[in-house]
């Protein structure tokens, strides 16, 4: 882990060689927008909003515009996070996003921050709120289910379950939906059942409180693949705490009587 020194907006900053610049910038409390970044998954470089300007003294004045989420820190890098060119890139990208997702609050707010209130381009024929950041599919991959993926390509790309059918591999953990930046992925929990991607799940009911916890499928996966005792899933967390206090109480009571 070699330490390196960078110049960020004129200020000297220490970092580790090879670590991605976005992490360094955020550590320095510099506001860098990013719509496809999630710490749980590998950086993607799709939204391009975290683009910054980098140069080095030996580059003879040449500047490169790179995505900070994927650019490795190296000694002597000189970084500008808000040069006019960088701002122009971000503004244009947000303008393009607005043409695709005019109703997405997140996009609207971010665009407004950069002074784009309305797209200057043609709104696409069937706009929706999916920003194609792939956070959902990448999280699903990282978790090991690989239930959903992007399908098609280019402008027609979308996120979908295979064959557009309820995906076999989905365990209903909701990680895709809960981490969707624009809440585009729809799901519902009604009366102890869950529905997502067209697939229905029974939620486990706590044997003591009757309250629903996670899906049977998710628990079974954790039992089988993560070596977790099946009994743990029978009751919910509050019931576990009660059991813990009662168990500890028994020992305490026993010691108390001993002392007496």
């Amino acid at each position, binding site marked *: 882990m070699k330490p390196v020194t960078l110049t960020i907006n004129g200020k000297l900053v220490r970092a580790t060689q090879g670590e991605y610049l976005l992490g360094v910038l955020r550590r320095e409390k510099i506001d860098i927008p990013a719509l496809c970044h999630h710490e749980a998954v590998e950086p*993607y*470089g*799709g*939204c*391009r909003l975290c*683009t910054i300007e980098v140069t080095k003294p030996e580059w003879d004045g040449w500047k490169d*515009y*790179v*995505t900070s989420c*994927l*650019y*490795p820190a190296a000694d002597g890098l000189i970084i500008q996070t808000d040069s006019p*060119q960088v701002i*122009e*890139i971000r503004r*244009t*990208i947000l303008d*393009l*996003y607005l*043409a*695709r997702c005019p109703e997405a609050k997140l996009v609207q707010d971010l665009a407004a921050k950069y002074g784009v209130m309305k797209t*200057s*381009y*043609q709104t*696409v024929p069937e706009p929706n709120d999916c920003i*194609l950041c*792939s956070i959902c599919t990448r999280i699903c991959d990282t978790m090991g289910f690989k239930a959903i993926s*992007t399908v*098609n*390509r*280019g*402008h*027609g*790309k979308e996120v979908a379950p295979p064959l557009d059918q309820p995906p076999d591999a989905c365990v209903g953990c909701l990680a895709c939906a809960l981490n969707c930046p624009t809440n585009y992925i729809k799901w519902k929990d009604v009366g102890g059942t869950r529905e997502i991607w067209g697939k229905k799940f029974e939620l486990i009911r706590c044997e003591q409180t009757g309250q629903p916890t996670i899906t049977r499928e998710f628990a079974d996966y954790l039992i089988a693949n993560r070596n977790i005792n099946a009994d743990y899933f029978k009751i919910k967390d509050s019931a576990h705490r009660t059991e813990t206090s009662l168990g500890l109480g028994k020992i305490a009571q026993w010691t108390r009587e001993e002392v007496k």
Partner: protein
Amino acid sequence: MGITSSKQLLEMHKECKATFEKYPKKVIVCCGTGCIANGARKIVEAFQAALAERKIKDFSIEAVKETGCHGFCEQGPLVVIEPHGTFYTHVKPKDVEAIVEKSIAGGEVIEPLLYTNPVTGNKVERYQDVSFFTHQHRIALRNLGKIAAHDIRDYIAVGGYQGLAKVLTSMTPDQVIDLIADSGLRGRGGGGFPAGKKWRTCRNVESDVRYVICNGDEGDPGAFMDRSMMEGDPHSVLEGMMIAAFAVGAKNGYIYVREEYPLAVIHLQKAIQDCEKHGLLGDNILGTNFSFRIRINRGAGAFVCGESSALMRSVAGEVGEPRAKYIHSVIKGLWDKPTVLNNVETYANVPIIAMNGPEWFKSIGVKNNSGTKVFSLVGKVRNTGLIEVAMGTTLREIIYDIGGGMLDGRPFKAVQTGGPSGGCLPAPQLDLPVDFDSLTAVGSMMGSGGMIVMDDKTCMVDVARYFLHFLVSESCGKCVPCREGLYQLHELTERVCTGEATEADLEKMEKLSEVVITASLCGLGKSGPNPLMSTIKYFRDEYLTHIREKRCPAAVCKKLITYTVIEEKCTGCMACITACAYNAITGERKKPHFIHQEKCEKCGACVAVCKPDAILVE
């Protein structure tokens, strides 16, 4: 029964050479895709039939060679009688009997089958004298039109695998890298990155495994150089890959071939099998401790897979989405291992550089751009086909000397190089020397070598729209500037074509293009706006005519043109009425016809059938 030493290879070379030169005369039947489409296979069959019945002194069917592409596809099927070089064009099966009788047995020349110089009208007897060939300098294409593509013995006969033998038995990997670096060979796939430098980086990365990949995913529409080389001389490509593998220390290689090229796959497959049979691929090649294997991967139709990181993901059986290359694929490539990726033409150059040395290669071409470059010269030029010229040859020489000038004598308007990543260059650039640096300097690029010539009937806005349409459908969709940016650029260009655009739109296009170029993730997006930018730069007037006058000067953009009958010229033959699928033309026999604008779809069917040229499009 393999070849286990360079000595054995040399013996085999002598033996093959003797067979190759056994008959004083050879008949070369071009079996490139173009000639096959025009019926070359039937010509071969006709020769087989004709020679089965007839015995000719000092000649046999073995001397009829099915070779790779000659390049002059326009004139196919082509038959050449060597050693004289008698050059027959547009040969039909029924001509074969006469060729056998008169040319082969008799030694005569069959006048009507000869090529006619379109400028002078004279017949040309030998292909060496056809202007299309005289101005070329063939290195990468050295064996095309000379040896049977599918026969390893022919390749060995002309000195094949001698470069490999030399490298394996007398050089160290570092010396090989030095040799390629000294030669100044730059990647022929488009970017022009020095091959030696790439190989050295790969070799210097610490790793147990390295790969060599050949990029045969020739996705540029309007280009077919790599196709012809893979089909016509697969062994040169394999030999180049082997030398590269030895230099960088790779044990496995992949050739990624476009799926639209089935014949290339068949020929490469055969070549690999033959090499394995002869011990030129496998373990301990030529008795050394160099071991190497090659596998073929067929692409599945994705232009973006020409991009190195996307190609590598595709080889691994995944979706061809590029990744950021702040860590280059030479260092972290296929399965995250150091990988050398070069294109077909680059590899085809390697064996001959190994044989002839770097100084020889540097003596061809211009400074920093050594050697030659293969182009597919197509579009509105007289002689279309595959050509190879020394670097630094001017566009004018290529188009006028080799290409024979413009088709139908129409004026030259532009030449497009570099495919969807390149640009359109106007007439004032005709004296530009063609090399990597000069083309980049004027806003185009070398690309893999497509060269599309355009005349005044080509609308430059339409060309930009065409490329953008292509790129929008080929974008992988991963990054926003490319996915959304190119889409919006296409929408805006479409508006220009339909006359709905304003001058503000033109400015918007230029600004958006800048951002797409700087901010996109991979080369597809980063160069995607080039065709648009270069046409706006060199043909701004044409854009403005579309915008201000709502007129398409080249009469291409459907929304801005009308079809009308020139009454004085119309003979009333009713051909157009029959041809029109929209019932937009009415009229009586021998009376001028009339086109109903509200029904006319501007499909061009009427123009195509009108013998007296009585339909005006403007």
